[in-house]
């Protein structure tokens, strides 16, 4: 960030290279829209560039601190955007690979993905953001709460409500003997 702050475009390019993929995955899961996700990530990197000269990392927190801050920018930009219906977008775009522990993605059927996508789209954005952060980003609950600007208790409340709604919406898939156990995701 220090190099980016000095206007080093190559340093900025490395930063983009390192964070854009995961940031786009996070934005995509919250906005549920390809164009919005790309715009959010671009806008977030614009802000990185503008903010960089005044960036003051604390002690040894360095990259982790930047990642948390950058996720907060992305999440806030996503939530600021007006929610749009996106079911067509989800169906028409193939998934990209993600570093998150999502091995079952590979065997999930299109129909299951569509059902999950529809159910997720019904969640309020903050619940969706909480779930995306805690399920896919591999960050602590404290970091997720910090990114969302809520207490850990409030984060847990968002997560519980999100998971319960999904469980209800996907009851036939999430029930006994279904899902991964019996091949419901194939």
């Amino acid at each position, binding site marked *: 960030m220090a190099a980016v702050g000095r206007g080093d475009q190559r340093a900025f390019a490395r930063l983009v290279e390192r964070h854009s993929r995961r940031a786009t995955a996070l934005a995509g899961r919250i906005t549920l829209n390809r164009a919005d996700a790309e715009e959010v990530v671009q806008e977030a990197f614009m802000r990185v560039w*503008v903010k960089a000269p005044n960036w003051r990392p604390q002690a040894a927190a360095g990259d982790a601190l930047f990642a948390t801050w950058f996720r907060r920018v992305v999440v806030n930009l996503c939530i600021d955007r007006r929610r749009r219906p996106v079911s067509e977008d989800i169906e028409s775009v193939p998934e990209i690979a993600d570093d998150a*522990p999502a091995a079952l993605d590979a065997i999930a059927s299109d129909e299951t993905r569509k059902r*999950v996508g529809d159910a997720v789209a019904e969640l309020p954005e903050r619940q969706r953001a909480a779930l995306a952060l805690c399920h896919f980003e591999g960050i602590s609950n404290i970091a997720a709460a910090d990114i969302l600007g809520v207490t850990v208790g409030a984060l847990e409340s968002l997560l519980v409500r999100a*998971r319960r709604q999904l469980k209800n919406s996907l009851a036939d898939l999430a029930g006994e003997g279904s899902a991964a156990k019996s091949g419901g995701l194939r």
Partner: protein
Amino acid sequence: MTPVRFAELVDAYGADPRRWPEAEREAALAFLERAPEARTTLEAARRLDALIDAWPLPAAAPDPAHLTARAARAAQEAPAGNVVPFAPRRKPPVTLMAWARAGALAAAGICGLVIGMSDPTVTNNVNGLDVYDVAQVEDASW
């Protein structure tokens, strides 16, 4: 770790201990060892986790070179010192003053309505028809 807290953890974070709060993970795993019935809760959460794993991604990552070029352009156009703070958004608390303002606004609205309904021009009987009649009388006098 109590059974209630264990259920809350699984309800919120799912079945994978890696997603549980670090401060409670060890205690939760120990609880799971001595309370096999908790595995039923865990199994249900695991099925939901598997479905959440199928959450589709609508977006592909933008081209980093394109982003870099756009950032450089934006930096040239941005005014100096244009730094945007990113404090998390919080709803402002509803204070007593806010309620007082709302009450004053409502009272002003009611006063306006009452005054409007008692408009003296209505009681003067001057309306379009009267003016028309006067005009006709004047025309007739010609």
